[in-house]
């Protein structure tokens, strides 16, 4: 068992700097999801860990073993790093049977034959593929091939497994099943898993902790799913994790108001630290905006908009509201509200559980 530590890792493809002084620790026996938009450098980071890319600076540690250090001129070749890997395209060797695939890493570890078979069988049991040992990969479905890849990763290392978007090629249902299974296997064996993805939903379902990278390759927030959902640390995290509306509030005559308009005051609480700046960005989810009819008491909201479009989605309506020229997305439950709202109707808006961030200056 071992954790992973990246220290000030930098990497560039030619002119293009992908990672700059990147540091991240993954605790032992945890599932860490590294989540970021495509092109943010998360796959590069994985390849650095595996030894398939060579960083230009920094250190990479696995437990107390240094895998790479620029300064100390250490660069352990991939085959001696002892990290299991599951690639996006499975990379199950098509010319070997399931058993041979899983045995291959053990052969390279020079294990005696009976022990090798025992270990491989156990790994296959873990991924519920025990009955498929003599099959060729081409006889298996995508999900089954993925399981073989996981079993192979399990035997090649009992310390750390890296998974690079391993479920992207599966259909929605299978994806969910696989996530649950990965979770279960990790619980049984207790390996450390670094799971790399751009899929927010998958990482929320899987992780102990999530690390979110932005498009420039910088680390934005590390935390549990609860931290990320309920307490997003940065505007990027809030925007990346789901659909969002953003408004800039300005301070006028001691009140916060929308669009610089004193007739559109924000009556909720804004953290006091923004008062000195006088401006703040407020983010709110589509289902955090409610109309007057859903509020039991109180007078109509002074923030008034017009419904432009209403789209029925079954359990919800997606509404596009024109608020002083800005398009606001509102999601309204088909059950708690009074149903759909006529297009063209005027509505009063109230904002629930908003998040506040410093104003993003236009670059």
């Amino acid at each position, binding site marked *: 068992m071992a954790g992973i530590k990246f220290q000030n890792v930098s990497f560039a493809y030619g002119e293009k700097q992908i990672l700059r002084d990147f540091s991240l620790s993954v605790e032992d026996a945890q599932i860490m999801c590294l989540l970021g938009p495509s092109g943010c450098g998360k796959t590069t980071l994985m390849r650095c860990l595996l030894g398939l890319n060579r960083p230009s600076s920094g250190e990479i540690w696995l437990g107390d073993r240094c895998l790479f250090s620029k300064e100390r001129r250490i660069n352990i070749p991939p085959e001696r790093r002892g990290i299991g890997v599951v690639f996006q395209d499975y990379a199950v060797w098509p010319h070997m049977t399931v058993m041979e695939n899983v045995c*291959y890493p053990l052969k390279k570890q020079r294990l005696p034959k009976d022990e090798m078979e025992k270990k491989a069988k156990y790994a296959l049991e873990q991924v519920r593929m025990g009955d498929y040992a003599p099959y060729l990969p081409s006889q298996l479905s995508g999900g089954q091939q993925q399981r073989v890849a996981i079993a192979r990763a399990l035997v090649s290392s009992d310390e750390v497994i890296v998974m690079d978007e391993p479920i992207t090629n599966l259909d929605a249902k299978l994806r969910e099943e696989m996530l649950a299974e990965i979770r279960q296997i990790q619980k049984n064996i207790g390996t450390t898993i670094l799971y790399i993805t751009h899929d927010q939903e998958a990482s929320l379902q899987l992780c102990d902790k999530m690390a979110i990278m932005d498009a420039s390759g910088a680390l934005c927030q590390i935390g549990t799913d609860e931290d990320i959902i309920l307490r997003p640390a940065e505007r990027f995290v809030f925007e990346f994790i789901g659909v969002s509306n953003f408004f800039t509030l300005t301070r006028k005559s001691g009140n916060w108001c929308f669009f610089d308009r004193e007739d559109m005051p924000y009556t909720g609480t804004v953290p006091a630290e923004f008062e000195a700046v006088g401006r703040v960005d407020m983010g709110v989810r589509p289902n955090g905006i409610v109309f007057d009819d859903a509020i039991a008491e109180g007078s109509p909201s002074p923030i008034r908009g017009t419904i432009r479009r209403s789209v029925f989605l079954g359990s919800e309506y997606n509404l596009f509201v024109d608020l002083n020229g800005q398009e606001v997305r509102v999601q309204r439950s088909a059950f708690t509200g009074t149903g759909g709202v006529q297009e063209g109707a005027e509505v009063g808006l109230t904002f629930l559980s908003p998040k506040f961030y410093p104003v993003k200056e236009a670059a």
Partner: protein
Amino acid sequence: MSFLRKRRGGADLAAMEGRHIGVDGLMTGLSFILLFIIVVIPIFMIVYNAFFYEGKFDLSLFTSVIFEKENLKAMGNTVIIALAVTVFGTIMGLFYAWLLGRSDIPAKGFMRALFTIPYMFPPFFGAMAWDLLFSGRAGYINRWLMSTFGLRQPPVNINSLGGIIFVECSYYFPFVFMQVVSALERMDPTLEESARIAGARQSQVIWKITLPLVKPAISAGALLILISSLAHFGVPSILGFSKNIYTLPTMIYALINKSGGSFEGIRQGTALSILLVAVVAIALVVQKYVLSSGSYDIIKGKSMRPTLIKLRGAKYPLLLLASLTLLVIVVVPLVMIFLVALVKAYGLPLTWANFSFSNYVKVFESPATMDSIKNSLFLSVTAGIVCMFLGVMIAYVINRIRPRGKGLLEILSILPYSIPGTVLAIGVILSWSGSLAGINLYNTIWIILVAYMARYLSFSMKSASASLQQVNASLEEASRACGATHTESLKDITLPLIKPAMVSGFFLIFLPAMRELTTSVLLYGPYSRTLGVQIFALRDAGMIPQASALASVAIVIIIVCNAIVTEITKDRKGA
């Protein structure tokens, strides 16, 4: 080895070992050296000898050869034949491709298999067969027609430009046929359906949508016909020599043959070669231009069976036409060769009484003939095996190691395919007859082997390359992560995965090498006759039934090997 270190995504596995050159460097270096020896030297020697004499630039030979009347005529013939074959072959290929790909004509699968048969056999077998039927007063059918209808002149003369064009056409139209059929099959049917919805009638859809969309496939096939026909030796030599009809490749052969292998003859041949290369080069430039101008992505969307066009009343007449075509281009020549192989003496009527196996006995008792079979087997197997490994190595270097200069590597390995076999033979003669480092391979079997390797390397390289592109780099990376070194990954993962492509690469070389004539006919020596050369020589010496017997043996070998290939490729799909 500076060309090694170009950093790219998954390409720097070797670099990650953090030390010296390794396997990758070795393979890269070897690829460059081998291609230099096999490809660059012969090409250089041709150009050098055509324009330099005793170390000085000298155009006199070149111009004198070119402006000789006979040579000009040969060039004219070459171009006329090639253009005519291209036009007729394309029309024929297109028509049958449409018939089998888009109409509701019955027995499609069967006919499709038959239509690709001409592809398997060397055209000069066909030329032999047609010669037996229609050559002047001797041809069987001509004789029958003359006696039946009391004609004084033979009605059909196969020993003419028209005859050559006809035979070449029947062997080259599959180039267009196969290209277009597969394009039609892969084409998204909604492209045509949306035109119907837009208001176009079925016939308008064919002209305005279907044909323009398969145009790239048509031009690719047509140019393949053009280039093949320009460089073709077998048919014009068999049908043309007796009536003094020459094309550039046959003229080169005649020049060298006449001079008895003297250097002067070879130099004249060299000059003509330049001419032939120039013509082919023009065709290649046209090809590049045409192909780059229009290549569309027509394969999209959910696969749905295309709506077949109902032929209604025309169905059975067209079926009859297709069957007759097959009978004429496939069945008749094959049957003819077997029949004549059985006949006791050429010219005897084809009746039971005149049949015997004596020709086969003679064939198998003649040491020269047996030697030719052995030589061809040795050459084909050796060239096949050597090229198989070389092809894999070069493909790996090009696709995975991607060194600086990989473009050059690719061009060098594919280039010889476009060089006419006749020209290549001359280049090999010029290079390996003692002028370079005193190596003299002339009149030995090795010089043929070198020529075969140059000629066929691109086949195995392309086959391995296509297969390597299917093998995702992550498969090799996964094995690294599993604890295998770079060399072990190559041995355990990559090579086994492309094994089927290597095997089919072998047969892609073995089969054409078994029936090769164009190059061998210029390179063979007293002890290095090949199968093709022996058939050609037997026929040339007037021993036509024996030539037919040997040809029929070759046909059997080819059919058996093709069956093996089909079986192997089937296995691959099953795995």
